[in-house]
C-alpha cells in the first residue's frame, strides 16, 4: 500500500501542468497498491483545490501566495514529517530543484532526479531517469521513503484531474527562517514574433557554430514562410533573444512543422516542442535523442542540408 504525496506548483494563480501530471502518476501508483494520493497546495491555491480531482486529499498549507524556495521547502519538510508518505513527487522544474534537494538533505531521504516513469514493485518503486541529455536511461529501485523529481511530459495532465475525492484538509507547517524574501514577478519582454503562434518553425541549436551562420538559416526560414526559433545554448550565447527560445525555460510551441537543425534533443528542449504536428530533425550525431521524437530525420551537417534545400527551392 503506497501513500503518495504530490507537491503542486502554481504560477500567477494557476496550477502548472506538472502538478496534474504528477497527480496522474500518483493516482495510478495509489490505485495499483491500494494506497492514497494526496496533493499539497500553498496559500491561495487552496481555493482551486477542486481542480486536483485525482487527489484523495488536498493538503492546504498556510503560505505566501508566491513561491518562496525557503518557505515552501520548510512546508514540504514538515508535511513529510507529519504525514509520512511513502513517496513524494516534486517537479523536475525551476521550483522543484530548490525544494527536492533541500528537503531530501534535511530529512536524509534519497532523491531520484529526471524521472519520467515510476512503477510499484512490491513495497519498492522502480523509477526511470533520463540522464546524459536524454542519451541514456537509468533504472533504479528504492525501497524506502524517497523523493522523486518528475520531468514534465511524463503523464497526460488530464489524468490528474479526476478519480479521487479531493477532500480538503488544512495543514500547519513551518515557515523557514525568513532569509529569502519574494520581491516581484517579471514578465518577459514583448517580442516582434510570437513563436507559440507560428505554423512553421525553423529551429536552431548548438550545431550552429557562430552567430554569422544564422543568416543562412534566416534565409531558409523566409523561403518556407517560417519563423526562426532556437534551443537554450543559442540564447545563452547571446545570438538570439529569449523570446525565440523553445523548451523548459523558454516557450512551448506547437507548429504544424518543426524543423530542428543541429538540436540534439535534450529533455529540456523536447518538453517545449513535442506537440508539433510534424518534427523534422537534421543532426550530425545519429545517436542524438531528437531522432526519437522526430517524424523525419537526416543525419548530416545542417548547413549542407540548408544549402541543398535552398538550391532546390530556387
Amino acid at each position, binding site marked *: 500500500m503506497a501513500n503518495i504525496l504530490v507537491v503542486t506548483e502554481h504560477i500567477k494563480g494557476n496550477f502548472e501542468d506538472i502538478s496534474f501530471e504528477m497527480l496522474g502518476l500518483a493516482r495510478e501508483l495509489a490505485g495499483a497498491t491500494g494506497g492514497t494520493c494526496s496533493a499539497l497546495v500553498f496559500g491561495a491555491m487552496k481555493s482551486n483545490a477542486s481542480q486536483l480531482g485525482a487527489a484523495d486529499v488536498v493538503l492546504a498549507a498556510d503560505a505566501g501566495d508566491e513561491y518562496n524556495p525557503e518557505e515552501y521547502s520548510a512546508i514540504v519538510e514538515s508535511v513529510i514529517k507529519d504525514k509520512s508518505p511513502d513517496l513524494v513527487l516534486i517537479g523536475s522544474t525551476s521550483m522543484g530543484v530548490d525544494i527536492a534537494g*533541500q528537503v531530501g538533505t534535511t530529512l536524509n531521504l534519497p532523491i531520484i*532526479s529526471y524521472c519520467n516513469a515510476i512503477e510499484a514493485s512490491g513495497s519498492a518503486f*522502480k523509477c526511470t531517469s533520463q540522464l546524459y541529455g536524454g542519451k541514456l536511461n537509468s533504472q533504479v529501485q528504492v525501497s524506502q521513503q*524517497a523523493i522523486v523529481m518528475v520531468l514534465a511530459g511524463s503523464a497526460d495532465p488530464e489524468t490528474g484531474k479526476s478519480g479521487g475525492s479531493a477532500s480538503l484538509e488544512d495543514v500547519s507547517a513551518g515557515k523557514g527562517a525568513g*532569509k529569502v524574501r519574494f520581491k516581484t514577478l517579471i514578465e518577459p519582454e514583448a517580442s516582434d514574433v510570437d513563436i507559440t503562434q507560428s505554423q512553421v518553425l525553423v529551429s536552431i541549436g548548438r550545431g550552429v557554430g557562430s552567430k554569422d551562420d544564422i543568416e543562412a538559416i534566416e534565409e531558409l526560414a523566409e523561403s518556407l514562410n517560417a519563423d526562426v526559433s532556437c534551443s537554450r545554448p543559442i540564447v545563452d550565447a547571446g545570438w538570439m533573444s529569449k523570446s525565440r527560445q523553445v523548451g523548459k525555460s523558454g516557450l512551448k510551441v506547437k507548429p504544424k512543422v518543426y524543423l530542428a537543425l543541429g538540436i540534439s534533443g535534450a529533455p529540456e528542449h523536447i518538453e517545449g516542442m513535442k506537440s508539433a504536428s510534424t518534427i*523534422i530533425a537534421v543532426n550530425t550525431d545519429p545517436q542524438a535523442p531528437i531522432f526519437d521524437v522526430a517524424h523525419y530525420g537526416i543525419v548530416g551537417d545542417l548547413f549542407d542540408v540548408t544549402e541543398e534545400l535552398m538550391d532546390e527551392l530556387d
Partner: protein
Amino acid sequence: MKILVLLRQVPDLVEDLEVDDSGKALDVSEIKFKLNEYDEHALEEAILLKERGEADEVVALTQEGEGSEKVLYTALAKGATLAKSIAISGEASDSAQFAKLMAEAAKAEGGDMIMVGVQSVDDRDGQLAPIVAASLDMPCISAVTGVKVSGNTASIFKEYSGGIMAEFEADLPAVIGIQAAEQPPRYAPVSKIKQIQDSAEIGSLSASSSNGASSIEVLALAPPPKGEGAKMLDSGKDLLDVLKDLGVA
C-alpha cells in the same frame, strides 16, 4: 565578499556514450570529460560580480583528478582570484554524497556566496546547489540568471517557464544554482592559461567520504527504448518533397 564557485567535469555528450560491463554505469574509460557548461556560467557570473565591484574574491574549487588542473588554471585565466583542488578520500556513491563532500570543502574554505551550475547531465541523485545549501544550513535559490549583491543581501533573479522571472532578496551567505550568467561565458586564450600555469599556484582542500552505500539501487543504464523513430531521409531533396507534402514549400 568572497564567492566560491564549485566546478564539475562531466562526460562530453558529443561522444558516443557506452555502458560498462556491469550494465549499470557509464563506461568512462574512453570518453572525454569537459567542464559542466552550467558551471561555466556560474564562474562567469561570479567573475562579473567581482568586476562590478560587488565581490572581492572568486575562489574556484574542483575535485582533484584528471583534468582538474586545466579546469582550475582556466578559471584563473578567466578572472578567478584563487583556485583550489579538493582531494576526496574514498568515493562518493551518488551525486547526493558528492554534493555533501563539496559542502564539506566549501565549509572549510568559507565564503559569503557559493555559486554552482543549476544541474549536470549526471546528477541523478539530486542537484548540487540545494544539497550543499541544506548541508551548510544556507538558503538556496536555483535556476538563476542574474545576481546583484549589496552589503549582506543579494537580489536574485530566478527563471520560471515561459520566460517569466521572479526576483528574490536573500540574506548571505547563500547558495545560488546558476542557469545562465548575465553574459555568455568568456573565453580564456591558451596563451593566457599557459602564462597562469607558470605563475599561479593551485591550493588544496580535502574532504572524506563516509563511504555510505547509496539507498538507491541501480538496476540498469541503457539507451532509451526506441519508438518507431524517425523515417530517415537521404538528402535535402527528399526533405523538400516532405515539406511539399506538408504544404510548406
